[in-house]
């Protein structure tokens, strides 16, 4: 049925695709500006700054002002990409995101750089694992979590043209390509079935998608036919794809690099419980992380092939 997934060794992270695409867009659209908080390097905006020094608005280490400035630039007719490390952008400036961006309905693109546990050993202060939860609560704010560089690029193109507020996670973790290259790599509010399957659905987002694909291979060897869904838009959720997964496979495991309260798993559960109740397991981050690399922490929280396989088998044998 499904060809074995040959996952190439990743060589670069999503920030490269993000920066290259932003530069391409800015070359043809003068409304594109970047706003950052002394994060030219970590947001990978060095190339943008070289080409468009005036259109790189570095406000210094001041996230509340950064998001407000982004909203003001949108009022002035620009399309601002507001870039900062995920934890500081979303945590420090949460009320600005709610009021200045979402409630105003300004087309600001909030770019959460190095989200999840990408900053590994720097610790929980630098992990952005709550962003999906607290941003999901904000009306009208789209939440996009690309799974790989191609999808990051396509999502940035979509965001520039969307005319609505959104948040994009721009991953630092090196990930293999899991989506086709090109504009169709991303569709807003569209979940993609990356692997067909009838026994259980593995519903993943961001850097967890390639792990779900790997887990599906292990499950196949054990006789379990797993569907893999790439949910690159956490909000608004592709409810039809989730309901189909629930009805057609009868069990769902969600996997996200985020706390399990209020993120992807919660969104899927809300949909499933309304339309097609099936057993679920929600995999994600369950506490402030101990010291360790991102890779170590993925293993620590069971966000790996073994953890996903165990959850799927538990659902199938209950």
């Amino acid at each position, binding site marked *: 049925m499904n060809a074995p997934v040959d996952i190439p060794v990743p060589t670069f992270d999503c920030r490269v695709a993000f920066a290259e695409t932003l530069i391409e867009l800015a070359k043809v659209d003068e409304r594109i500006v970047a706003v950052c908080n002394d994060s030219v390097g970590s947001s990978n905006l060095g190339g943008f700054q070289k080409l468009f020094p005036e259109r790189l608005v570095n406000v*210094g280490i001041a996230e509340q*002002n950064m998001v*407000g*400035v982004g909203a*003001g*630039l949108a*009022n002035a007719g*620009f399309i601002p990409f507001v870039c900062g490390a995920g934890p500081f952008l979303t945590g420090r400036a949460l009320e600005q995101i709610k*009021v200045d961006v979402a409630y105003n*309905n300004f087309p600001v693109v909030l770019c959460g750089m190095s989200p999840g546990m990408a900053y590994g050993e720097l610790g929980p202060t630098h992990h952005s694992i709550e962003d999906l939860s607290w941003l999901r609560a904000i009306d009208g704010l789209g939440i996009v979590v690309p799974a790989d560089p191609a999808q990051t690029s396509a999502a940035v193109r979509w965001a520039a043209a969307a005319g609505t507020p959104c948040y994009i996670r721009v991953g630092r973790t090196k990930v293999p390509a899991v989506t086709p290259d090109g504009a169709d790599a991303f569709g807003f509010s569209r979940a993609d079935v990356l692997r067909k399957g009838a026994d259980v659905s593995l519903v993943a987002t961001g850097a967890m998608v390639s792990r779900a694909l790997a887990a599906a291979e292990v499950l196949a060897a054990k006789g379990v036919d797993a569907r893999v869904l790439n949910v690159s838009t956490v909000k608004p959720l592709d409810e039809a794809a989730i309901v189909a997964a629930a009805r057609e496979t009868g069990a769902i495991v969600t996997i996200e690099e985020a706390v399990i309260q209020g993120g992807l798993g919660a969104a899927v559960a809300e949909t499933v419980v309304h339309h097609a109740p099936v057993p679920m397991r929600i995999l994600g981050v369950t506490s402030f992380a101990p010291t360790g690399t991102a890779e170590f922490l993925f293993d620590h929280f069971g966000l790996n092939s073994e953890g996903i396989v165990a959850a799927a088998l538990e659902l199938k044998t209950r």
Partner: protein
Amino acid sequence: MGLTPPANVKPGLATPLPSTLSSDERAKELRLKAQTVRRSVAEMIGRARLGHIGGDFSVSDILATLFFSVLRLDPTNPAAPQRDRFILSKGHCAAALYSTLALRGFFSVDALKTFVEPLSPLNGHPNRRKVPGVEANTGPLGHGLPVGVGVAIGAKLAHADWRTFVVLGDGELQEGSNWEAAMCAGHRELDNLVAIIDRNRLQQGARTEDTNRLEPLGDKWRAFGWDVVTVDGHDHSALYQALSSPHPGKPRCVIADTIKGKGVSFIEDRVEWHHKVPSPEQVELALKELA
């Protein structure tokens, strides 16, 4: 219900009172407008049984001066790209803003009667998605200036000559986000940006200086790279001069010394009138004093 301008409002970007007017004539006109705003506020809050009358009255002269002698606006096209921008950071004084916008022609004065009624576009804090003339939604304090800084940076990037004005409460300056924005505007030498501080010296619970001291306030803004002008916030000629004169190379901060509750004797400079609602009899008394 959507808010639209009355039929007799003329299209085109304009400032209602011409700059050629004599200072006395302008001040006389602006005083009439400000008193009309105050009477409207008294009626709205009296009817709604909700509002922030003290701050509405302290800011009325500032709003009248801006909307009738400074801001270039087109009520028939609130999103005209070359318009000046005005942001009321002290969004709780929405009644004064709505009254000013109606008087300026953005929507009918009649619509003010729906203030905070269920489903009215005139919420307790302004919403740009429902009220034409509102540039940014405010309510939580410390939001207006960062947005205004972004708008002013945008004007610079666009090489446009429109200006940005932000009115802040004085108590509001205790919010740190203002100082992030002040530092940024000073650093970027945004001489197309004006912050006006409604310096009525009272916040919700007490005097600002007894709560979290602001003074020396002018020095603070100067230290952040701003051109600071202190005026009597009820003197329309002084306000006009401060709001219309150029300030090359620096953003301007106008510290407008005001009296909270200005214009009504029993409301003036009393902390309880931050959001106390006047009785029907008190509304009548207020309207007489504001006649």
